[in-house]
């Protein structure tokens, strides 16, 4: 991501320390991760120490310091989904993709994350792939859902 684009994002949110998280969220959304050079540019322009930026980039779940896969799988492990068997669903997804939450497979196909509540509790347990929600998931139905993604 070039500095020009980063500067545009910074200027849009206001070039001040308080905008740090909003700026990073937008870079993350566009680029799907936060490259080191982007963090350095933000540090320079917002006059915020790199330690603070790195703390934020690792403290908050929305950010990734490494490239993510083409498809993002989110398994909801909120309480309602947990009570309806989300743990077994997560195990199945892990077995099928070969990765654990927070990881991306070597071919950069899938990234897996657990999320704490998508607000669709009536459909629990819930699996979300690329923003599309699949409700009332059972371990046996998971392979069917995932095989549609290239």
């Amino acid at each position, binding site marked *: 991501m070039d500095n020009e684009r980063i500067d545009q994002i910074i200027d849009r949110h206001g070039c001040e320390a308080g905008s740090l998280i909003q700026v990073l969220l937008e870079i993350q959304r566009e680029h799907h991760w936060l490259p080191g050079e982007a963090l350095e540019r933000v540090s320079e322009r917002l006059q915020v120490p790199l330690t603070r930026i790195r703390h934020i980039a690792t403290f908050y779940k929305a950010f990734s310091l490494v490239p993510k896969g083409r498809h993002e799988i989110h398994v909801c492990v909120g309480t309602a989904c947990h009570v309806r068997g989300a743990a077994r669903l997560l195990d199945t997804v892990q077995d099928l993709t070969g990765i654990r939450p927070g990881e991306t497979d070597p071919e950069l196909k899938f990234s897996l994350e657990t999320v704490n509540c998508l607000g669709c509790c*009536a459909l629990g347990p819930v699996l979300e792939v690329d923003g599309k929600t699949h409700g009332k998931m059972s371990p046996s139905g998971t392979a069917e859902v995932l095989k549609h993604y290239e």
Partner: protein
Amino acid sequence: MARIDSPEALEALREEIASRRNPETPCVSICAGAGCIASGAAEVIAAFEAEIEKQGLQADVDTRETGCPGFCERGPVVVIYPEQICYLQVKPEDVPEIVSQTLKEKKVVDRLVYADPTTGKKAVLESEIPFYKNQRRNLIGSNIRIDPKRIDDYLAIGGYAALAKVLFRMGPEQVLAEVKRSGLRGRGGGGFSTGRKWEESRRAPGDTKYVIVNADEGDPGAFMDRALLEGNPHSILEGLMIGAYAVGANEGFIYVRQEYPIAVENVTVAIGQAKEYGLLGKNILGSGFDFTIRVHRGAGAFVCGESSALMTALEGKAGEPRPKYIHTAVKGVWDRPSVLNNVETWANVPLIIDKGADWFSRFGTETSKGTKIFSLVGKINNTGLVEVPMGISLRDIIYGIGGGIPGGRRFKAVQTGGPSGGCLPESLLDLEVGFDELTRAGSMMGSGGMIVMDEETCMVDVARYFLDFLVDESCGKCVPCREGMRQMLKILTRITRGKGKEEDLALLEELSEVAADASLCALGKSAPNPLLSTLRYFRDEYEAHIRQKKCPALSCKALIAYHIDPDKCRACMICLKKCPAEAIDGGKNRIHVIDQARCTKCGTCLEVCPSRFGAVGKISGIPVPPPPSEEARTLVGKGKKA
């Protein structure tokens, strides 16, 4: 859209909007809240638009995409006005029939209306459906009537009249007094008196003050704030402005969880439309009162729902809570007086001003006034959002509105208050829901999450689950929380894996004491609650795990084994083929046996075994019975054993 520059102009606009709308004109309201969208509502909306055009009815029928009305279990939800006929679980294929039958011929499509699961009794009108009828939907009842992206809809139902009243006919002190008198207590978890919090900020020194909407809604299983913010964003903006006026603030923040993109979008659109009408910005309605709002997205941290951590995040830092010896109402964002309230708290404010503190305090109990929206989820028939007056019993919510436990299973516990709350057993079902009542019983109101659990839920695992959640979400700054929970989680995990020791329970209680007493913030202080409440009411389950290596709920993977009952197995081969670990041995007419060494306990076999056989079960605490002999495994003829 012309600026509204006086309260008279506001009322004139309201009349003008009403005159443009014929209440007899058919209108199709379709819920476009996150839950229904996930159930396919977008396709239903598209189908309605296509069919209405196809039948040439564009001029005669309106459609409206609304926010969540709460009956999530039966979504997508459609309500047809003016009759208020409610159709449930609507699919795109149903739409042509609805358009022809109901919109054109005013006939009800019987199969799509609500039917009681036991008696079969139908309810055609939204107001007749027991799920809604037994609620008191002061706040969420408006959702189905408005399109959140059309400010005129909000004006049409009386929106912003309270703001006008406050700006022109009430002084800030009067507003404070009214809110105090109403008895409104924070709906986010703390349950602190809203009026007193506002008053503290008003009295605090400083020219710049802030009002903040906490829309982080981190409690897993709670989504009422989402429904309010997505479905009726203007009600929150209006409440926020009334509070700002009372406190003396001219700037506001809305902190929204980034996992709620629809809410972020709807509130941003609402702010834009309010600005166009001059209901935000300088000299609102010509009153001289200025107010601006900024939307700030969260970045994925439960701890940022804690008010001081949220304020730290607003400053662009990592959300580490601050000690609250000096209240944030006095020193908050950038050390300025800041009033932070939950979405639902703000949504109540216009109602209190409009209808009065007396009206509001008619609902609820002595110490818990008003209504509360609960998200009723988990092992419950009618999953969704329910709004009830405080003081109603848990039983009435879970059975009267929730329809009880699915599958004919038994109620075991209800968890309230999110990760800071506790589990309440069957013996407390008649508890009257209120802030202090729930706290006394060992739980708390929290944001209103209500998770129902049945006999298949392991309470030790519930405690472990919440600790695991909090360990992940703890900011890590203070020792009692970071280190205390680290050790507690280790112990609980060991217990669920059959490696519990007799001294574990005492150590857990000791660690709980330190976390509760010495943690820096409420996350750490309340972290032991799920554990302590389950120990209080379900100690026998802990003891079974530790002493007998048994999980009574048949849930903890390390303590259970899946087993095929040789007397019931009919060798149909379904489980054998579906087993992802290829752990089932057997064949046609050869009774199936699970190889325990290969079994991953995914539960697929139990899921797929035909219910007429019901041969797969779980056992715990006893050794797996040895498989029958080869001869005994052979089924002769039509499923008869040799």
